């Protein structure tokens, strides 16, 4: 049976090869065609420009400021950053611009740059005079950026290299200590081995703990929403937007009509101009919800209720979420580990006096009256039970 299959394969190998190469060539052809069709066409009002590759490169340089746009203007890339960064930059990134203006009319681009309407834009783009040709080139470049996709965060591998290196050193030291004996002083071996062992264990423990944890997680959001500006500078109450925190398990992410309650009037941000706020309006118009990235994630087997903590427990948001009002880019302040939860459950007092529910703990009330204890910890009324959070 197997023999027959092998024979068959060999027999038809040539045919398969030819077919395969034909297919390959064909696909190349199609691919090339698509490229030809789409690339390098830019519209300016009624005119359509064909941008050759050479000009595209020129456009790139222009964007980076190697060829200056106009005399005073800095390079576009100075403000509109190209790559992924994990801090906030109020100016829209190149990719975001591309998202908005992809395959658009270069005339619009020209207007935005030369005669901006927003206050901020007016300030920063003041005095820009770019030509039609430059606008077309910029448009072409923006299209190219869009085609090359969203800039990704590059993975960091330093840790791994270090880890492997230390492993090798430790292993080599052990081998030398036991067999080869190249180094005379055993203390060297010992120091190396013990050092490596400590490092390896430490890294492993730390990394194991980190699995599934996201402390300091601060993803970029689809809109450059700054808690600092909203909650900090403008002193908006947390629960204005996260208004189900007191009553429901989830605090709720505001729907875009909540945003528009204010932003129907405030159409321009002090730092970001109109660009970011416009996203809300656009979402509303296009009927697309805004896909926020969840920052605080708990494992699926944990049941956390905001209502319990904010509503009944009267906790301040900051106790878990940190000083959100000082964060431009929201960051997970605490590790949200079980131990972290327990620390609180063990040390916090229950609001025994003001909540009628706790009247049922007569024993504790008596003790408080007598003065035997002055307060009741969450732990005392079962705050460390498994089924408080896991069920």
């Amino acid at each position, binding site marked *: 049976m197997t023999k027959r299959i092998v024979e068959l394969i060999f027999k038809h190998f040539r045919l398969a090869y030819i077919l395969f190469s034909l297919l390959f060539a064909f696909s190349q052809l199609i691919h090339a065609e698509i490229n030809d069709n789409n690339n390098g066409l830019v519209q300016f009002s009624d005119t359509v420009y064909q941008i050759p590759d050479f000009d595209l490169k020129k456009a790139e340089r222009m964007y980076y400021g190697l060829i200056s746009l106009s005399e005073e203007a800095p390079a576009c890339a100075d403000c509109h950053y190209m790559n992924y960064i994990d801090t906030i930059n109020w100016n829209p990134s190149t990719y975001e611009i591309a998202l908005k203006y992809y395959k658009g009319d270069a005339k619009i681009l020209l207007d935005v740059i030369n005669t901006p309407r927003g206050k901020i834009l007016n300030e920063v783009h003041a005095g820009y005079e770019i030509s039609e040709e430059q606008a077309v080139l910029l448009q072409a470049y923006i299209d190219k950026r869009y085609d090359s996709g969203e800039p990704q*965060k590059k*993975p960091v*591998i330093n840790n*791994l290299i270090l*880890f492997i290196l230390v492993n090798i050193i430790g292993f080599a030291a052990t081998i030398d200590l036991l067999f080869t004996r190249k180094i005379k002083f055993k203390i060297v071996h010992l120091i190396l081995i013990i050092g490596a062992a400590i490092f*390896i264990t430490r*890294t*492993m423990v730390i*990394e*194991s703990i*980190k*699995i*599934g944890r996201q402390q300091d997680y601060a993803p970029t959001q689809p809109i450059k929403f700054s808690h600092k500006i909203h909650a900090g500078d403008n002193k908006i109450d947390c629960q204005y937007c996260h208004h*189900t925190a*007191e*009553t*429901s*398990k*989830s605090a*709720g*992410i505001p*729907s*875009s*009509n*909540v945003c528009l309650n204010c932003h129907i009037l405030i159409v321009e941000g002090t730092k970001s101009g109109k660009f970011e706020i416009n996203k809300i309006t656009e979402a*509303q118009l296009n*009927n*697309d*919800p*805004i*896909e*926020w*990235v*969840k920052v605080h*994630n708990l*494992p*699926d*087997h944990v*049941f956390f*209720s905001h*209502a*319990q903590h904010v*509503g*009944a427990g009267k906790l301040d948001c900051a106790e878990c979420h940190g000083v959100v009002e000082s964060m431009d880019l929201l960051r997970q302040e605490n590790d949200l580990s079980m131990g972290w939860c327990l620390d609180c459950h063990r040390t916090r007092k229950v609001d025994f006096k003001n*909540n*009628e*529910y706790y009247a*049922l*703990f007569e*024993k*504790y009330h008596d003790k408080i009256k007598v003065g035997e204890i002055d307060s009741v910890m969450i732990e*005392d*009324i*079962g705050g460390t*039970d*498994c*089924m*408080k959070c*896991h*069920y």
Partner: protein
Amino acid sequence: MNKYWKSKEEKQTETRVPGSQANRDKEDSSLEMLFSDSIISSGATRRDFLKLFGFSIASAAIAASCEQPVRKAIPYLIKPEEITPGKANYYASSYYDGNDYCSVLVKVRDGRPIKIEGNKLSSVTGGGTNARVQASVLSLYDESRYKSPTINGEIVSWEEADKEIINRLNIISDSGKEIILLSNTVISPSTKAAIDLFLKKYQTAKHIQYDAISASGILEANKATFSKEVVPSYFFDNAEIIVSFGADFLGTWLSPVEFTKQYAQTRSLTEGQKRISKHIQFETNLSLTGSNADERIPIKPSEEKTILANLYNNIAPAFGAKTFKSPECNYNTEVITRELIRHHAKALVISGSNDVQVQIIVNAINELLGSYGSTIDLDNPLQHKKGNDTDMHNFIESLENGNIGGVIFYGTNPVYDYPKSEIIEENLKNCDLLVSVSTEKNETSEACIINCPDSHYLESWNDFEIKPGKYSLCQPAIRSIFNTRQAQDSLLKWSGEKKEYIDFIKANWQKNIYPESRASDFFTFWNNSLHDGIFELKSINKSVVTSVPVNILESAFNFFEKSSDNIEIVLYEKMSIGSGKNANNPWLQEMPDPVTTAVWDNYICISPRQAKEKNLKTGDLAIINNRITIPVLIQPGQAYGTIAVALGYGRKSSGKVAEGVGQNIVSFYQMRNGVRFAYDTISSLEKAGTGYQIAKTQLHHSMEGRAIIREATIEEYLKNNNAGNEIHKEIEKHHRSLYKEHEFSGHHWGMTIDLNKCTGCSACVVACMSENNIPVVGKNEVLRAHEMHWIRIDRYYKGNEENPQTVRQPVMCQHCDDAPCENVCPVAATNHSNEGINQMAYNRCIGTRYCNNNCPYKVRRFNWFDYTKADAIENNTVDPAGMTLDLKRMVLNPDVTVRAKGVIEKCSFCVQRIQEKKLTAKLENRQLNDGDIETACQQACPAEAIVFGDMNDPESKVSKHLKDPRNYHLLEELHTLPSVGYLTRISNRKKET
């Protein structure tokens, strides 16, 4: 371990306001998105997998230096007022599938209906449910439902389908051939109005009501005797003696939820009652009702009439009525006669037979006993089961004659459940128009040309009138998941009516029902009714009946079947599957039959003596009449000389779950003048093989003399309150411990189960599956004793094998304060909470199963395989019922963890409900009231046998029950100190000698 959609933001992209048209397009796409793999394939990420492997692969984790998967939080664009993410809403609605009616509340969480609960406001069902009602939420997410209208199997738009149908209807109507609308009994006034419109539009159209399980005999008998073609209402709660002939009124007969509630009231001894009803059951196969009876007499179905006739003749003289000639019967009816006469006006005699003559005699007896007006109400009859078998028979005849041009099947499936299904299927081909309007895929819809899929009741508007003046509403809890349209809308469209059905209902209510109310305006009236789910008028029971005409009664006595030695076959309904309409529901298939404890099968029930004679044993295959081969199950209590086989199995096209499960037995209906009799004489029963395995959840049926279910008779009980439970005090005296017991400073949750009220209907079993995300494991796994139910109904037989006494006991985790399971867990995954709950932390469990071994009640369940797809290792899922399909996963309760492979799980006293209600109390700054918290099993129980509450509160109902002298704990001699108490079973029979 995965949990599905903790909050709405995580998944939901759209508002799903029931009925809002604006978002329709968006919505469809969003729903589709929900079922596409891309969204729910979140499964376990690589990182989770690494986490599972812990330290050993920690180094690989560094190597991967991978990011946590990005979880998106998508808020509403415009948040609907009534939906709070993470909080459940309850919508009042009604369940009616053509057979069962129940007023319900639908629990909707983040836009998904996830649980059905009973509506306590209803005076008919009173908050009770049964297994089928509980399971109905899962059929909403049945992946085999039709997803859009089709013509000849091709997907078409509604416009195209409508055009085609209207076109053909007109042609047929013009040609003078009949158009038949074949539906179940319609109990909806607005649907009736819609049908009337339809009939008006098409002159040749006729509406025939056909019930798969018919009550034709009762209808005909009432027509003959009292000129009222109705199925009366029964009041078991008024009865002091109930004599039932083959009517499984606690399980399947007419309105079991209502009857169970009434029956349980007559069996209650908790609220100071000192009397319980006496229940005598004559029946062939051991039914749920029969197994609860005080006295049960196994009879052949053909003997029923003779016994009734004798009974009548015995009673009649006492009331000065005429007697008639009847053959002798083997059973001495004198004692029953005395009892009936003694309790006259408080007695009730019923029969499940479809034989008019039998029902006439029953009516005559009831009339003599003065039951009308007390236990039977003819003036406020039940509105369902109005299908007359003769109509159906005539329909088949005209079909055969070619008089019928088109048939619209609305929710009916005669190709499967009518005895002459081949004839129907054959002759249907001659029709020009075959439309199926059905929620689920079935044999008839497969035979139809055009399919206009009906929306599920949870997606539909409707109104019902189960009894005159007892209105209830059905409202959609979710937008149609598929491109389905509710049948009434289809009918309206075909009738040329422009209105949507909801407006039609409103108009109808405004016109006909609103005037009867005292509401200030229609808007308030409508909103209140919708909020409550019901609108009820006070009914007056007049029920003055004239005596049964002598000539009619005489004619009922003119024919008696000759007793023969032939074996008789009885077709019965199972609690779970019924006529087979809901057979594709995995929860129902997996629900152990309360009598046989078998799942996923039907079989021949045969008496032990008969089996010995036929040389059959459980697991053999037998062939009946050389036609159908079915496995055999020896069933104690089955009448000798009979066999019984359940209906509802052997579905051919219904979806993956039911197809190929069991055998279809409808061809054994006995047809007499077009009336279906659910029994027949069979010519042969031969052994045809061995080695078939019937999956039963319980293999041993004797209590082995252990005091597991404690019993006494009512006489003993009245003499001594702790009769049958004397040992309880004795054991309590011996309870001493070296250690000081732990204190429960706040709550101490406890539960009691009144064994006298519990009928074993298993609604709790399905409710628990629904509430707690319990996996369905399938027949093979049950065969290997791997079933997962957290609550089970233990059933034991006592006494004579041919007619045993049956006792039942629901058993779930007893939440022992000295729990043996807790001691042995090496990782402390199970321990005791501050509130007395034996808590189980699934994510801590490593699966040694030691706790399960050490549990004397064997209530812990282990995830033997990856039943839920929550396991980190891929491609090892065992899921024969498709419960891990993304669609069916919508039914999962987001408040309960979905357990992964290799962990133990068990009853948690519905801790999610406890936590929720405690939180509500805290937020409302008040104390928790007794009765605030209802566990899922308690909520579902139609008999109110289960009571849950705080044992630390001396005023709570559960504390009172625990102080009842009837209370005992299961295996209390082990000093496990369970938090679950049982109240002894008190029966109304003479003490055995």
